[in-house]
């Protein structure tokens, strides 16, 4: 029985790593793409405002959008073509305040998430990997922290950090005064790493005895390499999902802090806008609250949808296809 060589090249799909496969499947879905674009827009707005602010302070650009303090009309003008979002108690355009508010809220939420990841992930990973004494201490710390009501914790931290100047440990480093939102996102960050830490610890414990870790250990990997090079990438999808969902939580927390008077004081933020507006709601000036709430709704929806789709894309079970 003669063997006929096969001539036509057969397409062999090239190996797809976890990430490229996930990203491909993620971006295939319409909803995920839209929400990614919305998130991108918010980030761009924030960067644009930072740039404009830097520009106007350095080169005197008079970009109207960032000049939130300018009186554009009489007080409490309802939304009109001239002022799409109407004006506030000082006659300033609510549209500009909402844009500027994005800068504050996105920065606060982003930096707070960053802090909580910077603490939560390594601590969780170490606790999960080393077990024993280290694990006991970490579990004690985060159980203690989570047994204190969140409102008290964040209030206390915000009060403690208010107008404190922090000098970094190494000599010569600048001491900078914690102005305005600095104390807010620091307070939020320091009180919210607990959830992520517990999650990462659980995952690390699960992955710790997996073959690929034993293998890495067998050819002499150092502990740090194992954790950061092998273990974390496999649990990192949890971090991203957690990041997108916690982001919304931070924006909400900023609203509560403003209600309690600890948020941003002179520059507009969504929290301050909602807090200002709540008093005038019964007088029928609804647009300031509507603008801020709409801004929060859109970014929250985008983050939620993106988070969900991300979870589906990164879910190991689905990858068997």
């Amino acid at each position, binding site marked *: 029985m003669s063997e006929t060589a096969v001539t036509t090249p057969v397409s062999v799909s090239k190996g797809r790593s976890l990430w490229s496969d996930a990203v491909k499947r993620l971006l295939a879905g319409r909803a995920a793409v839209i929400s990614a674009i919305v998130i991108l827009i918010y980030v761009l707005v924030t960067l644009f405002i930072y740039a404009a602010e830097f520009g106007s302070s350095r080169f005197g650009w008079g970009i109207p959008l960032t000049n939130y303090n300018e009186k554009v009309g009489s007080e409490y003008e309802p939304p009109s073509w001239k002022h799409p979002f109407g004006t506030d108690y000082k006659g300033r355009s609510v549209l500009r305040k909402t844009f500027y508010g994005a800068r504050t809220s996105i920065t606060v939420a982003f930096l707070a998430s960053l802090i909580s990841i910077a603490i939560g992930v390594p601590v969780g990973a170490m606790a999960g990997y080393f077990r024993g004494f280290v694990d006991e201490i970490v579990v*004690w*710390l985060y*159980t*203690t*922290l*989570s*047994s*204190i*009501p969140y*409102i*008290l914790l964040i*209030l*206390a*931290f915000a*009060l*403690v950090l208010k107008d404190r100047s922090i000098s970094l440990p190494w000599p010569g480093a600048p001491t900078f005064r914690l102005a305005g939102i600095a104390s807010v996102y620091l307070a939020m960050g320091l009180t919210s790493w607990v959830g992520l830490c517990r999650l990462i610890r659980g995952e690390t414990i699960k992955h710790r005895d997996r073959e690929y870790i034993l293998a890495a250990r067998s050819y002499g990997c150092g502990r740090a390499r194992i954790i950061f090079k092998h273990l974390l990438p496999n649990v990192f999808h949890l971090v991203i999902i957690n990041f997108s969902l916690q982001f*919304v939580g931070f*924006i*909400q927390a900023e*609203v509560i802090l403003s*209600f*309690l008077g600890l948020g941003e004081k002179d520059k507009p933020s969504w929290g301050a806008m*909602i807090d200002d507006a*709540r008093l005038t*709601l*019964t007088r029928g000036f609804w647009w300031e*609250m509507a603008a801020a*709430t709409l801004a*929060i*709704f859109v*970014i*929250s*929806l985008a983050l*939620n*949808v993106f988070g*969900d789709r991300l*979870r589906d894309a990164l879910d190991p*079970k689905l990858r068997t296809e």
Partner: protein
Amino acid sequence: MTVYIVRRLLYTIPIVFGVLLITFLLFNVVGGDVAGLIAGKNASPELQAEIRHEYGLDKPLIWGWDSQFVDHFKNAITFNFGKSWHDREPIIDKIKRGAGPSLSLTVPMFIGEILIAISLALIVAYLRGTWIDTVTVLLCVGGLSLPFLSFILAGQYFLAYKLGWFPVFFWPNLSTPQYVALPVLIGIVAGLGSGVRFYRTVMLDEMRNDYVRTAFAKGLAARKVLFKHVLKNAMIPIITQTVLTIPFLFLGSLLLERFFGIPGLGYLMVEAIGSRDFQVINAMTYIGALLFVVFNLITDICYALVDPRISLE
């Protein structure tokens, strides 16, 4: 089992110690001279000295047996929280009095939210991919991002003041259910957003498992598969999420109590921080921590009841 419980109870001691340590550190750093506050308008120095003496503030901060640090722990363990600086009322009475109304508000809210959120989540997860699923997700995220305060203002203005279905505010001759009804309703509706979203993800993860397919292959109706097989398996993440919020129920709800005149403990904490009433804050956090640790244990025991694979070593 009892060995496990005893070991866990012993384990609570370091936790409670940690909580007391943190509250002590936080508030001695936050500052604001308290004696001046109590003394009031134009307090003479010796009056302030007397106040410091009465509240033990003149003792050394940490070192030595009779220091504030040691007192802080002694008082906590013996549940003698002393008097509130603000209005001289013994704190134990204040907490006992406030716990009732707070719980009458938060417990129905807690139960209502769980029942509604879980059933909604089950149904929506089952109808995954249909328009109902997408609409519900939209509603959830909407509810999530709307500030809680606007729910209250809108609810009070329309349901109570304009339509009059509910009393606007607490009133002496109203029975508890009458004046608690509207705040509980608002609390549930406002909380549904995050509740349904979380439970939906849990249900979806659970529905991917093979035993669901076997259940259907046996000829079971979807209702039975959902509410018997899937729900019991989903209890584990549900327990984690819900049982740990129970200890904080006694804290009441900050805004609802303030806007509907329910004399609970909700605003007590914020007022105490505002007026540097450390005694009240320590008491509330200490009780909160005790409850939290106990419920942590209850959570683990619930796990063992629900999931046979988990054994309490």
